[in-house]
């Protein structure tokens, strides 16, 4: 499965890029995070504290146990600070 993975705010800065295309067999967001962390230190560091990270699948805010079947875009970011 091919996914667009997006990073925002300090997550984008720590990982060093705003988006990438990822080839993965991950069944859930949590599995995708484990695959990313295994790649390189900067991913491992960025995802160390998941309580500080939010996720959206196909532009809908969701949880880390969400299934990735039919997903096309996964975005990771810190808690939002709009308004």
């Amino acid at each position, binding site marked *: 499965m091919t996914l667009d993975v*997006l990073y*925002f*705010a*300090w997550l*984008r800065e720590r990982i060093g890029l705003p988006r990438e295309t990822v080839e993965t067999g991950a069944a859930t967001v949590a599995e995708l995070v484990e695959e990313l962390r295994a790649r390189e230190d900067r991913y491992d560091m960025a995802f160390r504290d998941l309580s500080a990270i939010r996720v*959206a699948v196909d*532009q*809908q*805010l969701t949880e880390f146990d969400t299934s990735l079947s039919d997903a096309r*875009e996964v*975005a990771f*970011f*810190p*808690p*939002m*600070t*709009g*308004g």
Partner: protein
Amino acid sequence: MRVVVQEAPFGAGEEAERLAAGRADMGAVVTFCGLVRDTPDADLRYMEIEHYPGMTARAIEAIAAEAAARWSLGDVLVIHRHGRLAPGEAIMMVGTVAPHRADAFAAAEFLMDYLKSRAPFWKKEVTARGAAWVEAAEADEDALTRW
């Protein structure tokens, strides 16, 4: 309902005037305008607001639709800027129009609470001492529990 996400400044006064213009069935208009506030302990040079273009308008529209379902409203407006903003500049505004004032106030506060923690914007403050992402306040998350 009107949702605008843009980099350019907007005219808060003009937008406020337009909200109930030409209507005689509404009794109350509430507006909130959020401004870039200078940091008390460090000179703020500017604020940089990042957002998630594919998701932003849709997330705001869902929040506005929820407000329209909960209260008796004649109209809802949300404008939110992104990009680089100077101290004192308007970041965003919400406007609510209703027959009665309680609905207009409640809906405006609801919109603000949800935009704060559920719309995909991230603020970075750039001061003389460096740059730092604004951290989400626990109080902002707690504010959602009242609705």
